[in-house]
């Protein structure tokens, strides 16, 4: 029989894993309709860009520190143990290759399609962060499935 702390850690880990996957999808979907921007940026587009920057930073913060920030040192240690650190590193590697691959594609596409620098950057960074989150969520969920308490 598990104690309360183990249940809390289990629920928090599941919540984090699902949140990572959902946030990745929402992040990409939210950008899909707003990639195009005019030069110079009009006011709504400038606000959209600012929001995207804040959102990106928040998601990166979640990816790195999401896990018991407000729950105390012991719970944080459990939620950020060896497997989680390994999953995070693997997720960042996937995000890295996603960024590089997308940047290569954008580089080639820019000679055939009119793309601004901001659109290019948003595409590359959005996909990089989304892939990292999806990877992290998938690895965590896979690891959590199995013999439950």
């Amino acid at each position, binding site marked *: 029989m598990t104690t309360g702390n183990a249940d809390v850690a289990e629920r928090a880990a599941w919540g984090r894993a699902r949140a990572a996957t959902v946030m990745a999808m929402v992040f990409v979907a939210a950008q899909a309709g707003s990639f195009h921007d005019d030069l110079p940026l009009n006011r709504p587009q400038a606000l959209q860009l600012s929001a995207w920057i804040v959102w990106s930073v928040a998601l990166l913060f979640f990816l790195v520190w999401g896990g018991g920030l407000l729950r105390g040192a012991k719970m944080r240690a459990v939620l950020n143990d060896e497997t989680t650190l390994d999953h995070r590193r693997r997720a960042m590697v996937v995000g*890295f*290759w996603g*960024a590089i691959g997308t940047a290569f594609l954008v580089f080639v596409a*820019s000679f055939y399609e009119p793309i601004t620098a*901001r659109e*290019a950057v948003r595409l*590359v960074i959005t996909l*990089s962060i989304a892939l*990292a989150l999806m990877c992290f969520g998938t690895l965590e969920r896979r690891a959590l499935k199995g013999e439950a308490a």
Partner: protein
Amino acid sequence: MIADPVARAEHLGRARATLFYLLACAFVTSTVMGVHGPETPVRLGTWLVLASLVAINLTPVAGRFQPAAVTRLLNDETTRFHRGTSLAAGSWVSTLAGLVIAAGGLALDASEAARLIVMAGLSASLVCFATLELRAANG
């Protein structure tokens, strides 16, 4: 038959680290000089080939032209850990570069922005990997 795979792997590992530092310098120089420069097909094609070579060097594929015993040592547990760590570092640097470009309103086109992001990520990974490997070898 390799006389001493361990010694050969040690030598090649150090050489690889030194090469990575030089490659990072060459790649950064090439990319920065290309920004705002004439975008001729030769220049851009050369950059693409160079970037691809750098990327391949950051995968385990690059060390496969040695005998199996040496390849295994060149891609052992520590090296795999270093590779993962350096790619994660590269991810951070490329993301930061992207956010700075987006927020900074720099006078760049899409091709230049993409090249700068690739340069930032790949160079940071190369330098990080080389540093970790040399530090481990010198300990």
